[in-house]
């Protein structure tokens, strides 16, 4: 379905080549094409969408790795008229499940199922987090200038953030400085008491990054990033990818699939090779050997792939290469897809139509992390489960369903499995079995509904989606890898040390999830 515009006459020169048709690449392509640029998107896979692409994992059953509660900013939805192109959003509850407690449901400030004191405390928690998230919101859509030797307009950017923080009021400003670095464990301890409520509230501060409930410094910011939009959630990832593709085609973007890029061509323009300032990207060479020229190359691939694989360390100075090399981008989330013969029945729920967190308490999450940090499989995995086929019936045959689970924490490579390259058949089977075992505690009949399974470890994702470390967000969401340090200084304003080569993927500010913001920001910089 997603094969490119085969009827378009092949051009020999483009204004811009975008490497990778993930959602950020497509958002970027859309904005550039709408500004009159001739844009070619090159996608290595047979389908567009990157991690968001929906693949058939069992005959008749389709799923997307990026199935997750995701808010696309209203501005992007409106600018690109994605709704006209079929984008579907809606409401999604966060549901906390525990064998020991009744289910707790959250949606924005609404909470049900919690005890009265917790429900009241949650209101205060939500008020504070929402206020802080709204404070940050404009900065995720900005290019944050580097620190030092700033121009007046750049200083104004910092001053604006300073002013925003001031405007929180004395008390909330003080609280902000304190809680921003707290681990979820300590933060939630100050508000609520229910173990399952703590576990579900900690979830969005943790998932996707190498951090557990007791890990300080990074979780609260990640949570605030995810709370930035109060708009509706993308309930159907397939509709997002299709809408972005539809909009791109309408805007004149040329898209080629099955066109893996082997190399970004770098030329030395004004002097001998080796002097970084003189290097210019002139085009790309595909794995097929075909060479395509363009004035501008924008990579939506992760920073490690972009710089170390596609560009090559020989074109970069050693300090920059070292900084990319140390960039922390090993994923810890494994994806499990189940093909089911019917709607799974979760104890205590009428419909499994929310985003269900299967973690009875923060300790269980912490212990799973403790296993994985040594390269072991989690003894008791914790997971977030959705049934995307309830929101898009095309994902499964009539009456049947797809269950999509994000399982934490799994190592990138299992200790002891070095001989089989990281994941032995036995380890894969053991992980799948423990995932099913946990699922069975919440949905006792799930095994009997099971038609097919798919297990995608971080290593699988690295191979299948060409994303370093199999990391969802192209790199940990950590203080030192954010804002003007994402992915590292020298490449944090979307431009790179190579003239004409830019970044637009989740490894740039602001970060991952299906927000489209890196692509949006990069397009603005590319048009400057």
């Amino acid at each position, binding site marked *: 379905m997603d094969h490119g515009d085969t009827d378009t006459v092949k051009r020999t020169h483009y204004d811009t080549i975008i490497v990778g048709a993930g959602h950020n690449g497509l958002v970027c392509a859309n904005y550039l094409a709408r500004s009159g640029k001739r844009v070619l998107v090159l996608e290595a896979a047979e389908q567009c969408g990157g991690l968001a692409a929906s693949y058939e994992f069992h005959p008749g059953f389709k799923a997307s790795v990026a199935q997750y509660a995701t808010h696309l900013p209203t501005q992007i939805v409106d600018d690109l008229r994605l709704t006209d192109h079929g984008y579907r959003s809606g409401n999604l509850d966060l549901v906390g499940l525990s064998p020991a407690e009744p289910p707790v449901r959250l949606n924005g400030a609404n909470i049900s199922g919690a005890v009265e004191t917790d429900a009241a405390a949650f209101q205060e928690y939500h008020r504070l987090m929402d206020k802080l998230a709204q404070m940050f919101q404009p900065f995720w859509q900005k290019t944050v200038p580097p*620190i*030092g030797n700033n121009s007046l307009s750049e200083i104004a950017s910092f001053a604006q953030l300073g002013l925003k923080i001031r405007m929180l009021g*004395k008390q909330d400003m003080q609280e902000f400085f304190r809680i*921003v*670095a707290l681990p979820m464990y*300590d933060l939630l301890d100050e508000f609520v008491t229910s173990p399952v409520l703590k576990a579900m509230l900690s979830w969005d501060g943790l998932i996707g990054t190498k*951090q557990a409930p007791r890990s*300080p410094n990074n979780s609260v910011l990640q949570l605030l990033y995810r709370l930035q939009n109060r708009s509706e959630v993308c309930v159907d990832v397939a509709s997002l990818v299709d809408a972005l593709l539809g909009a791109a085609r309408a805007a004149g973007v040329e898209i080629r699939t099955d066109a893996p890029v082997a190399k970004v061509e770098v030329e030395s323009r004004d002097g001998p090779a080796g002097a970084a300032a003189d290097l210019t990207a002139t085009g790309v060479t595909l794995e097929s050997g075909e060479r395509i020229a363009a004035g501008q190359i924008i990579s939506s691939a992760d920073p490690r792939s972009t710089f170390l694989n596609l560009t090559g360390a020989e074109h970069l100075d050693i300090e920059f290469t070292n900084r990319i090399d*140390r960039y922390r981008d090993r994923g810890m989330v494994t994806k499990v897809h189940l093909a089911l013969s019917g709607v799974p029945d979760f104890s205590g729920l009428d419909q499994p139509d929310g985003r269900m967190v299967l973690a009875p308490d923060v300790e269980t999450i912490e212990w799973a992390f403790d296993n994985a940090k040594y390269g072991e499989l989690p003894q008791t995995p914790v997971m977030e489960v959705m049934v995307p086929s309830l929101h898009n019936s095309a994902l499964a045959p009539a009456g049947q369903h797809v269950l999509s689970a994000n399982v934490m924490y799994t190592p990138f490579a299992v200790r002891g499995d070095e001989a089989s390259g990281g994941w032995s058949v036995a380890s894969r089977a053991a992980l799948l079995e423990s995932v099913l075992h946990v699922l069975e505690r919440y949905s006792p009949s799930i095994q009997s509904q099971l038609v097919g399974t798919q297990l995608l470890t971080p290593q699988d994702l690295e191979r299948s989606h060409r994303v370093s470390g199999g990391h969802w967000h192209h790199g940990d969401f950590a203080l*030192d890898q954010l804002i003007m340090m994402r992915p590292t200084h020298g490449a944090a304003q979307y431009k790179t040390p190579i003239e004409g080569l830019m970044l637009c993927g989740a490894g740039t500010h602001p970060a991952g999830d299906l927000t489209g913001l890196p692509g949006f920001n990069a397009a603005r910089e590319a048009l400057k």
Partner: protein
Amino acid sequence: MSHYDAIVIGAGHNGLTNAAYLAKGGFNVMVVDKNDYIGGAAVSRELQEGWLYSSCSYVCSMMRQALHRDLDLSRHGLMLVPYLGTINFADNGDTLLSYHSEEAAYNELKRVSRHDADAMFRIQADLTRYSQLIRKTLLRTPPDPTSFKPRDISELLFLAKEFWSLGEKELYEYIRFFTLSAADFLDEYFETDIVKTSMAGAGIIGTALGVYSPGSSYILLHHVMGDVDGSIGAWGLARGGMGAISNAIASALQSHGGEIRTSAPVEQVLVKDGKAVGVALENGDVLNADIVVSNLDARRTFTKIMAKEDLPPGIYEKAKNYKIRGSSGKVNIALSGLPKFNNVPDNPYINRGGQAFSGSMETMERAYDCWKRGTWSDDPFIESVIPSAWDPTVAPAGMHWMSNFIQYCPPELADGPWTPEKRDQFGQTVIDKIERYSPGFKDLIVHMEVRTPWEIEQEIGLTEGNIFQGELTIDQLLFNRPFPGFAQYRMPIKNMYMCGSSTHPGGGVSSACGANAAREILLDLKRPNTVPEDDCYDE
């Protein structure tokens, strides 16, 4: 009924320092302490005849030199001597020795890895640079970022200027260093586990974080930013044990006319019309004062010696939420001779430093996992020093005293509180581990004192036995310490102040907290400032 200008609760080194500066400023000062000895956790005690145990803190490097000189502590008997480096013991029996001689140190590292030997120069240079910025803040009162007072704004600008002046690249490296885990930080420099572990211990001592926890690289810095006689990163011993520090400050205090009363536990701080007016002792005595200074930790101050109804709303809850976690144990051992260690040359200069039984990064992290689960590891991280190898005053001739600091030890066990039996099991775990590296070690033991966080809390009064009076994480540093809005040593009650390690710049025997608090008190009372500026600015 007696009346004082100021009463300081707790005769630890910060309380004594605070009182010494108030006395120097002309105040009539009384320091009260619950114990029958002074010093708090900077103490030397003869628990076995002939041996002087530094039973809590055991090494010193953070004492601000400006204070040392200004209070003339040397004349009051304080002598700090640097000790030789630490021998690191790995799980597999390998050792890594460290030497003060740069050449010897380099050769030893090169034996393990040439790459790491070179990297050691890089990391030492970086650590020294990073610590210089923090050292500038130690004897300054943190600004309140929410305030518009000229002093707060100028102090904030001072910090911003110092920070900005690092330059773009350095600044980003600095942010990394502040937020990373010790493991991630060390991974960038070193390739061998034994070199990493030899550095990582400093990242976890006294803290409820693991070497893999984000934030532990700051703790590492906190432990290497001190100096002995200007040698940054060096650690020293106080001749006569850590009590010598407290005794010297107490002597300075008394020379300025201050008084100390021991065996005088405070029942409650007396508050009248929203102002502190004195303290009531447990024995019923009432001491009136214009000013009350608490050297106790923030949790204890607000939840133990103050009535909840005397506090403004919210303070009690802030104190409850203050993170002050017991994570360390201490085993003090009297030895009949100097222990010999496997794979360590029989060289008296080598054996006069410390020993770190760290094992590996994973062993250290697994010990933290045990702490999270409310138990102790059977393979804990132990940092040991044998001060008697340098200092003849702490053990009988030919005999030795060994200090062993253990990370981690939970404040309470998963199955209930500590009991004497469990405490003894914990002690056994420690000497079993040392015996593995030093066969025959147990036969040398003459006497042994085992202290879990429970004992430390009972004896010293540190909540949960936390040696820093509160975790050194970003949420509790600088203007957040102990909590936002109260980081300038003034308490929410008028005429009441804090001067312990719960305040900026935190734990370590630096005396900076006590001195900074004194400066604020003198300022409030419009007296001339007697507290010196730090003398490290031009390093």
